[in-house]
């Protein structure tokens, strides 16, 4: 698993996101319309692809795509 792969998966899940626009340092709340529906979609994506359960607090303490990715990495090792 790598951050690039994670970004590709996000791009394929969120139709509104233009490919190539999202970078590891991108603030995910700014790069596309961040709302509760998209947050739940992200939880579903991560659960399905990485077998990791993101919770509301994970989003609260993350700003960038890389922050989220690091949480997924940490949780996947638990």
């Amino acid at each position, binding site marked *: 698993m790598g951050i690039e792969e994670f970004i590709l998966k996000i791009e394929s899940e969120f139709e509104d996101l233009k490919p190539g626009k999202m970078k590891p340092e991108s603030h995910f709340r700014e790069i596309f319309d961040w*709302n509760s529906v998209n947050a*739940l*979609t992200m939880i*579903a994506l991560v659960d*399905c692809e990485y077998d990791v*359960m993101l919770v509301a607090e994970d989003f609260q303490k993350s700003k960038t795509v890389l922050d989220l990715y690091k949480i997924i990495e940490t949780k996947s090792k638990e």
Partner: protein
Amino acid sequence: MAFFSIPNTRIAGISTCVPKNVVANKDYKWISAKERELLIRKIGVVEKRIVTKGMTASDLCFESGKKLIEELKWNKEDIELIIFVSQSRDYLLPATACILQDKLGLPKTCLAIDVNLGCSGFVYGMSIIANYIAHCGIKKALMLIGDVTPLASYRDKTSYPLFGDAGAATAFEYDEKAAPMHFNLQSDGSGFKAIIIPDGGMRNYPTKKSFEYKSYGKGIIRNKLQIALDGYAVFNFSLREVAPNVRALLEKFDVPIDSIDFFLFHQANLLINESVRKKMKLDPEKVPYSLNRFGNTSSASIPTTIVSELRKKVSTEKLKMILCGFGVGLSWGSVYVQTDNICCPEIIEL
């Protein structure tokens, strides 16, 4: 885990009644067109049926029950048990099951119970009825089940677009040849706040404050007598618990997953249900949905999906099914059941 098997009980019939009043989410003006489009796509609810003023879950259930008794040509005097599974009962007291016993013209020898469960209610209700039939000598029983949405605030985008109204009836009878039903039922009250109506019960008796509308975020305004959904908590719970519960059931009773004809999940929302389906690697053909036309009909969603999507099949074929309910409580469970040519009239509109 609460695993158990119940023999000698067959499902004789299932019917569902929905209000005539169709409400389309494209007309949900409380949120922007863009948000609406995303919401419809993700929750999967295009339209739903909503009761008109004065109509209750028990009214829908009554119509379903009446129709089913007629279609089955059952003698009412033979019905010895009626349970009403709902979280939108007619009155705080008495039990709505008693009112329905009389309204349906069932004899005074009929035992009537209310069961206060929502999304898991169909599976739990089956376990109660099947136990009475298998172990208490009862030969014929009715489960009436359903909920209505006046419990949801129109100005709450987290709940109003999701829920629809329906009331179903399921008839059970003693049958020595019936294959056993296998159950796996679970609960976790630590998550009781995930789906809650905070006021109106004995813990928080209604006061003037209960009726005051408050904002809980953008597009979320409700009072304390209306349903509050913690989307994250419900979502995490569903992804964490549903698939393992079904897998454990199949494993415990040595049922090969490929032998199942249909998996009937509670119609929570498309995002949750598709995540569960993908986690379990289930063929889409085996996982029917009624969400798009009827929304999340709470306790009635499993029978409503059977009637709306599988009516011809269940009426004419022998099928192996997994039924799985999950939600408010938190409460969840699944049952493996074999059906055999069950009576399944077309959806009734009231």
